[in-house]
């Protein structure tokens, strides 16, 4: 009875547009009252939910991402990517993907990538004579690489909720992220030949060298951050601190593009974004506590395992559920609601938590590209000045390569697990 109220109320409040954190907290509170528990466990669990060292990575990665968006750094990386792959057929499509991969190694959120870099990419592609649909589609699809390649905010949240190693999750994301880039590039190459998209002038080693020299210092960021995490030299939180320190060094000492007003602005934006995420994590802690106490995952897991004991079929069912939730819910909220249910089921079925993490996040990223709650599509419809419905249609074809990568990783766990097992185990 209490659990019914919990789920039904949560669904109603979320759809009604009540902030996710408050929907989680209020429906949990309703359960606590019905179950006759002391109400003070609500606020106690919320506070304890934030009291976690790995979560410290969140404000630092957000701050680093904001600082990296400073004047100078974006331009340099875009110019380098253009000299590197712009000469190919559909060159700017490849530039778009490569720039997203480089930025993925600096920042950790897809929606922010679509808003910042996406703005630049779409303008550049339109100026060069690409049609809007193709520009929007490839920008939307490539922005989802961000949270798969480390650093990644969704992976931090997954790690905290599932008690999985965030270092291993980060290492596990690298190869799947690069696979996504390759699959999208294949798609671009295919389309570019058929539709005759423009290309830049012939490959010019001199220009590549000049732009490389210009972009050298910013290009070190992903190497410091991803390299530091993947080799185990940095914990994720330390990598985030290193990224902030390096971004400050570039902005204050090297390019001198930051002044105190920028710093205040960036700090305020970081506080707002971090607090919004932290409150969801806090409220999800009480929600997860209720689900665990009631063994919801165990019961659901037994039901699923009765249905099938084939691990791959089970994975497909889990992914279908995640994809469905991802279509309707914002990423962080979806992770906090799904993980307490899914991770015990996965553990029972012998699915590695790190493997599950990559699959869940990749699934939720695909959810960002689908209506009705495709956050990336809303952002791009705003950035490109194109109606939401047209963004949906433009992005649809690009879902195919991403789904192929998702299935590859589901059926070949080593694609995700090889790197972390080589480094950490």
């Amino acid at each position, binding site marked *: 009875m209490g659990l019914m109220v919990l789920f039904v109320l949560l669904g109603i409040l979320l759809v009604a547009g009540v902030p996710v954190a408050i929907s989680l907290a209020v429906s949990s509170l309703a359960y606590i009252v019905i179950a006759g528990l002391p109400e003070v466990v609500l606020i106690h669990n919320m506070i304890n939910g934030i*009291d976690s060292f790995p979560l410290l990575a969140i404000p630092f990665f957000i701050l680093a991402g904001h600082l990296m968006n400073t004047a100078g750094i974006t331009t340099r990386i875009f110019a380098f990517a253009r000299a590197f792959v712009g000469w190919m057929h559909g060159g700017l499509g490849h530039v778009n993907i490569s720039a997203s991969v480089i930025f993925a190694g600096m920042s950790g959120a897809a929606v922010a990538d679509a808003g910042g870099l996406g703005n630049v990419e779409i303008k550049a592609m339109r100026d060069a004579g690409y049609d809007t649909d193709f520009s929007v589609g490839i920008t939307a699809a490539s922005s989802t690489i961000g949270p798969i390649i480390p650093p990644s905010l969704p992976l931090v949240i997954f790690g905290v909720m599932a008690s999985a190693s965030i270092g291993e999750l980060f290492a596990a994301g690298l190869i799947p992220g690069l696979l996504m880039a390759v699959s999208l590039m294949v798609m671009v190459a295919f389309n570019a030949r058929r539709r005759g998209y423009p290309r830049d002038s012939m490959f010019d080693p001199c220009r590549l060298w000049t732009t490389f020299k210009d972009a050298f210092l910013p290009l070190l960021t992903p190497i410091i951050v991803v390299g530091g995490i993947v080799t185990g030299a940095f914990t994720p939180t330390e990598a985030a601190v290193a990224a902030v320190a390096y971004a400050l060094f570039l902005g204050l000492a090297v390019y001198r593009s930051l002044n105190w007003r920028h710093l205040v602005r960036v700090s305020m934006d970081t506080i707002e974004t971090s607090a919004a995420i932290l409150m969801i994590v806090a409220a999800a802690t009480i929600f997860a506590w209720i689900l665990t106490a009631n063994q919801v995952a165990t019961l659901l897991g037994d039901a699923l395992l009765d249905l099938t004991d084939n691990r791959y079929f089970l994975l497909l069912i889990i992914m279908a559920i995640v994809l469905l939730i991802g279509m309707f819910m914002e990423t962080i909220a979806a992770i906090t609601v799904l993980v307490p249910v899914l991770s015990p089921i996965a553990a029972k079925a012998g699915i590695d938590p790190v493997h599950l993490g990559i699959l869940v996040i990749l699934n939720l990223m695909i959810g960002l590209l689908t209506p009705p709650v495709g956050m990336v599509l809303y952002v791009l419809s705003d950035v490109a000045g194109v109606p939401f419905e047209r963004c949906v249609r433009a992005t649809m074809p690009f879902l195919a390569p991403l789904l192929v990568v998702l299935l590859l990783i589901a059926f070949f766990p080593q694609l995700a697990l090889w790197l972390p097992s080589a480094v950490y185990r």
Partner: protein
Amino acid sequence: MNGDPGIGDARPAAVDLENMSDDISDIRLHDIPALTVFVALLIIVGLQFFTRYVLNDSLGWTEEIARYLLILLGFIGSVICVRKDTHISLKFLYRYLPKPSIKPLAVFVDALVTGFFAYAGLLAIELAERTSAQMMVSIRIPKGVIYYTVVGACFAMALFAALRLLRTLRSPPDLVAARKFETSS
């Protein structure tokens, strides 16, 4: 466009890539506590990083204090989210609802947020009183400092939510609907 694409026919991008805002006009005096906690967090975690990697001797108390500051950042920062209505929420229903029904729903949401944070503040007082004797592990500061700050943040959120509720009640339905779309993302 069909046929063999010409080499070099892609014009260079004429875009302004400098998208960094330094506009701080929306920052208010009551944002100072959040900013202070944030700067303290930066300094403490930076200090921990420095002592571990440069001095090879990490300071023990930094981790505990950093976690407490993160709690404060979550709750005090959340006050700003309530004031600016930037807490993450799903707004897709508003796209499909007839305009006149948006205002009652907005009133309901604002009222629920107000009520919740007021109640959460009361619960936090209870928690603070129960744990008032506890001290932090690494330094001699009572943990109650954290809990009472959470109390303050919850009541501040209830206050700002109540102000938003009043504004929603007083606004004509069209304006309420327009505001919902303005912040939808």
